[in-house]
Each structure stands twice: as structure tokens, then as C-alpha cells.
């Protein structure tokens, strides 16, 4: 704990800088405030006066916070400044649609090349759609984490990744089970066709489960990358605000 915890936590709530700049700025300010107060005490100022003077000199006011935000405005935001907020959101949605379309086109081409679309499981389509949403959520999470450095956005997209990964796996396993019962009931009526039915089921649902597992793995990797980014930012901020001492290199 230092004598500046209250002021620094208030500043942390108001400072809208991208991560990791935000945490680093808080840490820089904390060490400077403490060192400044110590230097002023060394010059003969009494404790309270040294603290007040250090805060007056170093703690950024509203204009200085705005100036810092301008200095550290992410390149992407500077590039899209010419668009209105509505226009920017439309542009971002369009980019996500393009990402999803490219993924679906690539995925379908691959499945087709592997001859897995000749008699696909009907469950493949919702699973493919969910996997496309995972790619969109992953792109959104990485964009928030590594381009905007916006922690709220990272949390939002990370939550979506967990939900979509779980939904994809659940759909695929439910589909595989439903397909299996379908095959079993057909075999009960016509046991003579057991081999082609079973082979067809294996092919259809192997493709279904493969797509789902790949998509869930991708969701896991996106989640991990975003979580690491969030953890690094939170650890750095905690160190800057005096909750703990940073042990890693900034």
C-alpha cells in the first residue's frame, strides 16, 4: 500500500487507454508519485505537504487524461475516425460477415474435396454455422485484445466463445446420437443392409464430430489467447494499484 492508492484507483476508473498502455501508465504514475513524495520529503517538506504537491504535479487531470488518450489512440481508431460511430459499426459487422463467409467457403470446399458432402448428416449444417460463429467470435476477441486493447470487449467475446464452443459440441454429439438411433431403427427393419448403413453413419458422423471438435478446439485457443491477454492486463493493473507486486517483465 502507498499513500496514493485512493487517487490511483479513481484514476484507473477514468483512464480510457488501451491495454497494456493503461496498466503501464498507472504503474509509471504510481512509482513517480511515491518517488516524488520521497524526494520532496528529502527537501524538507512534511509528509502531507509532500504528498499533496506530488499529486498536484503528477496526477493527470481531465485535460491531461484526454491528451494521453489522444497519444495512445490505436491506429485502427485513427484510421476509422473519418466514419461516424454508426458507419464504423457497420464496417466492423461487414468485416465479420466477410470473415465468416471466407471460413464457410473454405470449410465447404475442404469437406467437398474430402467427399464428405455427398450424403452429409443433417446436423452438419447447424454445426458448420456454429463453427462459423466461433470464427467470428474469435476474430472479435482477438481484435479487442490485440488491436483495440479494450478489456470489456475482450470479456464479452470470450464469454461468447465459451457458449459457442459448448453449443457446437453439444449439437454435434446430439446429432451423432440422433443419427445413430436413426440407423439402428432402419437396421431393425432391414438387417440385411447393416454394413452400408453403418459405414454411411460412420462417414457422416465422423465428419460431423471432426468439424465440431476442430471448431471447439479453435474456440479454446481463441479463449486461451484472450484470457492470457486479460490476465496480463489485470496483473499489471493490480501491481500498479498496489494489490500485489509485479513479478514479470512489463
Amino acid at each position: 500500500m502507498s499513500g496514493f492508492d485512493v487517487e490511483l484507483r479513481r484514476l484507473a476508473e477514468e483512464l480510457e487507454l488501451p491495454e497494456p498502455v493503461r496498466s503501464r501508465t498507472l504503474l509509471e504514475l504510481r512509482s513517480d508519485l511515491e518517488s516524488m513524495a520521497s524526494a520532496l520529503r528529502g527537501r524538507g517538506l512534511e509528509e502531507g505537504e509532500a504528498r499533496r504537491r506530488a499529486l498536484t504535479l503528477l496526477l493527470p487531470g481531465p485535460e491531461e487524461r484526454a491528451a494521453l488518450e489522444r497519444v495512445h489512440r490505436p491506429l485502427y481508431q485513427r484510421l476509422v475516425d473519418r466514419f461516424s460511430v454508426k458507419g464504423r459499426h457497420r464496417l466492423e459487422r461487414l468485416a465479420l460477415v466477410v470473415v465468416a463467409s471466407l471460413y464457410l467457403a473454405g470449410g465447404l470446399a475442404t469437406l467437398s474435396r474430402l467427399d464428405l458432402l455427398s450424403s452429409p448428416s443433417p446436423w452438419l449444417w447447424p454445426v458448420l454455422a456454429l463453427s462459423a460463429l466461433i470464427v467470428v467470435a474469435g476474430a472479435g476477441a482477438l481484435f479487442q485484445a490485440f488491436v483495440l486493447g479494450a478489456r470489456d470487449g475482450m470479456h464479452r467475446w470470450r464469454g461468447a466463445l465459451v457458449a459457442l464452443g459448448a453449443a457446437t459440441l453439444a449439437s454435434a454429439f446430439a446429432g451423432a446420437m440422433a443419427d445413430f438411433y436413426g440407423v439402428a431403427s432402419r437396421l431393425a427393419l432391414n438387417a440385411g443392409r447393416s454394413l452400408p448403413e453403418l459405414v454411411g453413419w460412420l462417414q457422416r458422423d465422423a465428419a460431423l464430430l471432426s468439424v465440431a471438435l476442430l471448431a471447439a478446439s479453435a474456440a479454446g485457443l481463441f479463449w486461451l489467447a484472450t484470457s492470457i491477454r486479460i490476465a496480463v492486463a489485470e496483473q499489471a493493473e493490480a501491481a500498479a494499484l498496489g494489490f500485489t507486486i509485479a513479478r514479470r517483465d512489463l
Partner: protein
Amino acid sequence: MKSDDIGFPEPADDGSPVDIQALGRGIHEVLILAVLRGGPGHGYQIALDVEDRTGGVFVFQHGTLYPILHRLEKAGRITGSWDPVEGRRRKIYKLTPAGRRHLELEGGRIEAAFRVLHRVLGGET
């Protein structure tokens, strides 16, 4: 006088008007660079040194120091690194060769602008 990428005033030798706000920012930048010419320093040391060396005429208040330091760092005129001191990490700034060139160039330009101002205030023609 026009401004460069960080809003610093260009020389007035073309007769164009001085951007007063850019001149103000430029003075603060030059003061920081001049302090760092004497050796690397932490933010609080730079603030105290500027105040001491200018006899309290120039004081960084309300955190005005940080946007300027970060802007200079982004422009490559100073570099910031993290220095472990007594178990804590403190950011220390160092002047770069580009910063040294900028200081020489812009310091001269500010001097020229102030000579003009002095001439006007002194009533010279």
C-alpha cells in the same frame, strides 16, 4: 509557422504566423529533452529538474508531463525502459540521437521565436 507531426512549431523565417499552442507544447518538449541531455531520468526527476533549472518558471502541473513524455517516446525522441529499483519497477527515459537532433533544431527555432517576441516587447522595429 506550421506544425510538424507532433505539433512542434516550424521556423518563422517564411513569415507565416506562429502557432502559439504548438509553441507552448514545443517549449515543454524542449525542456524535457534538455533535462535528459544530462542523463537518463524518471518522470518525477524530469519534472523536478525542469522546475529547478527554470527557477519555477516552468512547472509541469496536473500530470501535463505524461502526455508529452509518451508523445516524445512514440516519436522516437526518447526511449522508456523499466528499471527495477528496490523491488519496484520504475520507468526511466533516455534521450535518443533523434531526440538530440530535435533538441538542437527546435531549441534554435524557439530561441528565434523568443528573440522576435523580445524585440516586439522591447519596442524595437
